[in-house]
Structures are given as structure tokens and as C-alpha cells.
């Protein structure tokens, strides 16, 4: 709650002349907070934690794709890379979970810096392909390194005690930790896209040449947003590891990158809340339709086709259009 209020008072979250967070955003934030406080009493908490982790993952991609205009097809590398590092740190080094999550996230920052500094030299499809190629290298590493356990993954990662004090074995207490982490990540993104830095990003997205002519070091901005996005994807992956107590090849597989893109597009690319909705829709389908077997992927495909044909701006984008307010 307090963080939300802080963000509201932040003079830099300028989007409108008024200088404060738009009313619609405030309402949605309040609703989200309320919903996430009530939800675990009615819905299975592990499922909710999964939605939150993937929502953060999709938001991190949205930061890059929707606001930076950079289509990364290799976000699984940061998500999965952090998952493996966090799993290893928590299991083998036997640290507390917050240290594992922190080190996992940092590893993604470093990885994002390395890959980003090379990838941003190219644009469009070439950028996407370069990120995909690097992600495949990370996948290959996860397959071959001795510490990753090959196709078995790293299993039985302890949830441990937060700060060495609070046991996270109960789903309920872990839920609120994950809630704080994902909400923190979400607010960070909100802050980034409504800062002067975010405005420059949008300018680059709309017209890169013009941004250069205005004197902006375009590559500088691109690299920063790339690293930020990788870091947040890593935060999501590391948190997911603690929730499910495992890291596996699924996390670094290219289809995980695809899933993040799918969530972002269905929810609404370039909207603030879109990826959250997209993640909720996709994860719900994966979990609740699992008994339908093969139909999960078919239904997912159909929804994607419908979304592209009928409402290209995504679910939240469509709502925003109807309300005539940015969401």
C-alpha cells in the first residue's frame, strides 16, 4: 500500500499535465491490491503465485517490446538463467531464499548486459534473431553444464526461511512474499515508463532517427532498458524457482520466450496492465484446461488468432479504447 501511495505522489510519474497518476490507473492499482489480498482465501495460492511470477515476466518483456520497441525473442534466457542460479544458490550453497533470488536476479543483469550490448547493434528482425540465438546458447549451457542436472533440472530446492526468520514452507506466507516481489517489480516498471527516461524510450520507439537528431544517445537508452528488462525477467524466474522448488529446461526453452510474447500480445502490448491480464489468461488456461489434454495448445492458438484478427491491441488495449483512457 505504502509503495503505491509513494508512486502516486511521485512528481515524475507524469503522463498528464496534472502531474499525478491518472485516476484510472489509481483505481486499477487499488483494485489489483484489493484483489490480491482477498484472492488467496478463495483461489489456490500456488496458482496465484504462478500467475504473479509470469505476470512480472510478461511485464518485463512489455517494458522492452511495448515501450522500447525492441522485440526480444530470447527472454527465457534471463528467466531461466536466474531460475537455475537461484536454485543452485538455495540448494547447494544453502542460503536463505532472498539471497538466492537476489543472486539469481543479478546473474540476469550481467547476462542481459552481455547479450544486450551486442544485440542492440541490430534492428528489427535481426535484433530478435540475435536475442534468440543467445537464448539458445543459454539453453545449450543449461543442458550441458554439470550443475544444472541436464533434463532432470535442479529439483527439491528448499523454500527456506526468509531472512533466516520466517519459514516459507506454508503456501500462504510465501504468497505474500511473492506478492511484494511482483508488485515491487511492477511498480518499478510503472516508474520507469513514466519517467523522463521512459519518455525518451517512447520517442526512440516512435522515430529512432528523430531521437538521434535530437541528440539522444539512442544505443545508451536501448542498452539500459534491455538490462532493466533482463533483470526483471530474472527476478520473475528466481521467484518462480522458490515457489515451485525447481528449475528445469522448460524455463530456458525458446517456447518460454514465445509464451512471454504471447502473454504480452494477448493482454495488450504497450499498455501498463496488459501483460498482467495476458499472463493470467494464459496461465489459467494451462492449469485449468490441463485435463483437456491436447486442446490446451489448440485453444491457445485460436485465442491468439482471434486476438490478432479482431483486437490487435490486446484485451486491455481494447478496454482502454472503449474507455478512451490509457491503461
Amino acid at each position, binding site marked *: 500500500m505504502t509503495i503505491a501511495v509513494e508512486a502516486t505522489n511521485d512528481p515524475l510519474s507524469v503522463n498528464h499535465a496534472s502531474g499525478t497518476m491518472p485516476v484510472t490507473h489509481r483505481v486499477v492499482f487499488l483494485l489489483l491490491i484489493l484483489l490480491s489480498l482477498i484472492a488467496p482465501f478463495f483461489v489456490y495460492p500456488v496458482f496465484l503465485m504462478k500467475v504473479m511470477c509470469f505476470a512480472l515476466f510478461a511485464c518485463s518483456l512489455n517494458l522492452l517490446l511495448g515501450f522500447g520497441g525492441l522485440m526480444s525473442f530470447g527472454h527465457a534466457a534471463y528467466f531461466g538463467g536466474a531460475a537455475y542460479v537461484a536454485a543452485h544458490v538455495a540448494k547447494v550453497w544453502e542460503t536463505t531464499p532472498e539471497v538466492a533470488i537476489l543472486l539469481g536476479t543479478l546473474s540476469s543483469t550481467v547476462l542481459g548486459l552481455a547479450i544486450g550490448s551486442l544485440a542492440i547493434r541490430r534492428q528489427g528482425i535481426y535484433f530478435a534473431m540475435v536475442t534468440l540465438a543467445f537464448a539458445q546458447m543459454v539453453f545449450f549451457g543449461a543442458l550441458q553444464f554439470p550443475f544444472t542436472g541436464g533434463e*532432470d533440472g535442479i529439483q527439491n530446492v528448499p523454500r527456506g526461511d526468509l531472512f533466516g526468520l520466517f519459514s516459507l514452507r506454508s503456501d500462504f506466507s510465501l504468497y505474500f512474499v511473492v506478492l511484494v516481489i511482483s508488485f515491487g517489480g511492477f511498480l518499478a516498471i510503472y516508474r520507469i515508463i513514466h519517467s523522463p527516461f521512459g519518455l525518451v524510450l517512447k520517442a526512440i520507439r516512435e522515430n529512432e532517427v528523430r531521437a538521434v537528431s535530437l541528440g539522444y544517445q539512442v544505443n545508451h537508452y536501448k542498452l539500459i532498458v534491455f538490462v532493466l528488462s533482463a533483470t526483471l525477467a530474472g527476478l520473475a524466474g528466481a521467484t518462480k524457482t522458490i515457489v*515451485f522448488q525447481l528449475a528445469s529446461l522448460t524455463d530456458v526453452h525458446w517456447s518460454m520466450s514465445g509464451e512471454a510474447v504471447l502473454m504480452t500480445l494477448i493482454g495488450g502490448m504497450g499498455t501498463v496492465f496488459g501483460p498482467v491480464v495476458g499472463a493470467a489468461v494464459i496461465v489459467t488456461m494451462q492449469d485449468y484446461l*490441463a485435463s483437456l489434454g491436447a486442446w490446451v495448445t489448440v485453444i491457445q492458438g485460436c485465442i491468439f488468432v482471434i486476438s490478432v484478427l479482431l483486437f490487435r491491441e490486446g484485451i486491455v488495449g481494447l478496454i482502454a479504447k472503449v474507455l478512451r483512457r490509457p491503461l
Partner: protein
Amino acid sequence: MCYKTIIAGALAAAAYTLPAHAQVSDDVLKIGVLTDMAGVAADITGKGSVVAAEMAVEEFSSTVLGKPIQIISADHQHKADIGASIARKWLDVENVDAIADIPNSAVALAIQNLAREKKRIALFSGAGSTALTNDQCSPYGFHWTYDTYSVSHGTASAVVKAGGASWFMLASDYAFGHQLAKDAGDVVKASGGDVLGEVLHPLGTADFSSFLLQAQSSGAKVIGIANAGADTVNAIKQAGEFGIVEQGQSLAALILFLQDVHSLGLAVAKGTYLTTASYWDIDDQSRVWSEKFKSRTGMMPSMVHAGVYGSVLHYLKAVEKAGTDDAGKVAAAIRELPINDAFTHDAHVREDGRVLRDMYLARVKEPSASKGEWDYFEIVSKIPAADTVWPLDKSTCPLVKK
């Protein structure tokens, strides 16, 4: 959650005050089949596994201890996090008593740990990782059908005995392939044979030609194919294009299922050696069961299907004997009872949770020798149970007393 625990506790306390009655929590015995419905293992597991579990339940007339038995199923889509979250929900919210099948070793290991923590029964049939009964073994986890050790050791030792003394290994280049090739190679050497060479191929490659040419020019009598799924199918297909079997070399696939042979066709797969835990055409009992299975699914059962059926049936027998669905007592009964079903005769469960059963060395028939659809395997020999399992003195399972 809290009040749920309290209610559960109250119910448990109430149940203990009525010792004369059989005890099944929440008045229904639920078995979850967690499987692969659309991915690479969908043919050998998938819908067939659900049908196999239902057929086991029908043998019990769908009731045990006077309570109904319910089968539920889900597709883990080969993703460990999806598998783990479905299983968690099954165990926490839906009170599932046992989870069966679980192809994909990452998902299986996740379930093994979850079931140990939540004290529920896990019956692995579709997974092949030996870790399930070694360092990750569990008092509640039972590895039913096959593991990578049993299929590689069974095939390698039997093929050497049948005269295939010199081997060349074609292995996929990751931990699983390395292990499979090493296991098989060790057995070949221990049985008096020789491994002439090894080549590693990248996982999921589409082109095996250079690897097969190396295998061909090695002069080895047997080419051991140490990979799985689509890689195995592609390797055998391309070996057929090179005419490797016609030119006198044999193929030994370390992991190959009936359905793989069905999709390859006999013309391509003929002459390949493999190990199987069961085959539909062994005796009258297996034939009757399999025909019934075929009338529902359109295919003969793979060894995984037979394993799911056997494991669920044995689980129900154990629940009946224990008089409760309490996992600890049922696990004890599972270990105690001999295993008998349409495919298994007098097998039993070892202390690490591995099922000890005789397996079969099979050879894929020539198209001319096959009497019809699904008549694919010629059983070469029976492999005694002791040769198909990881030796206990090398076990890293904490449940094994040394």
C-alpha cells in the same frame, strides 16, 4: 488455509474415534493420472494411460473399502512447473491419494519430492530416470515399469550373449545420452564384448548421415542407439535409408516403445533389438487385456500403459489390504504384497521403491514374419529381474540399509 487444516484435523480426529470403519479420507479414493496428452510421449502414455488406469479401477468394480474410486487426469505439457502446480493442487485442494504415470523425468522428480513432502503415493510408469530410486528415492514413490538402467543393461547384455560382441555407440550429446551409452558400454565390456567407438550427436538433430557413416565404417556388429523419442525414430529411419541392417550390422535401440515401431513401420525398424517390460502377445491373459484396451484406444498397449494399469491395480489391492488410504500404511502394503496382473507374475517392490520384474529382449520382426497390425516383436529371451535393476550395493538411496 488455516481453517481448512482445522477442519481436516477435526475430521481426522473424528475418523479415529470410529476404528471399526475402513478409513478413506473424504469418502472417495482419487487417483490422478498426470501425463503427456499432445507432446512427444503422447502415444506411449497420454490417453492410453488414462484408459489403462480406468481398466484397473473397473477390475475393482470402481469401489474399494466401500468407497468410490475416481480417476482424474491432466496434461503436464512436459513443463515441470505446470506439472508441479497441477500436482500441488491435486494434493492440497482435491485430496488426490495417488498420482500415476508421469512421463518426463524433470516432472517426475518434481512429483517425487512433492509426494514425499505431502505424504502421498506416486506411481511412476512413464519416467525413466534412475534418480527416482537413487538419491531422490522416497518411501512413497514407486518406480514401476522401466528405467534407463534396465533398458540399456537388458539390451546390451542380451545382445552380446546373442553374438553381437562389437559395438559402436551413437549417443545424444547431453547427460542422459552419455549415461545411457556409458551404462550400455560397461555391460558390453563386462559381458565379454568390445566397444569400438562412440559418436555424439546434438539433441534434436535432423541429420544423422555423418554419424551413421562413422558407425558403418567402424565395422562394429551392433550400433547402439543411446537417445530417446524423436531422435531414436530419426536415427533408425535414416539407418534404414543407408541400408545398414541389410549390410549385416544390427541396431540396438536402448529406449524404444511399441508405438515407435508402429510409426516407423516394420520395413524400417526390422531387426532392431530392444528391451521391453511387457508385450501384449505374451500369453492369453495379456492378449485378452490388450484386445480390450485396443477396442477402447485403437492401439495395443505400450509397456508404459501396461505399467500404469499394473501400478494402479496394485495400489488398489494395497489400499484394500491396509484398510485405509493413509499413505504410510498403503506404502507398506505395496511393498509387502506380491505384484500380479495381466502382464506381471509374482514381481515385488524393492526397498528403494523399484519394482523387480522379469523383462524381455525383443527383436523387431521382418515385415514378412508379421501376422498383422501390432504384431511387431519377436521375443528373443527373458531377462531375469536381477539384471534389469541398479544393484542395491551401489544404491545412493537413503532407504537402503547397508
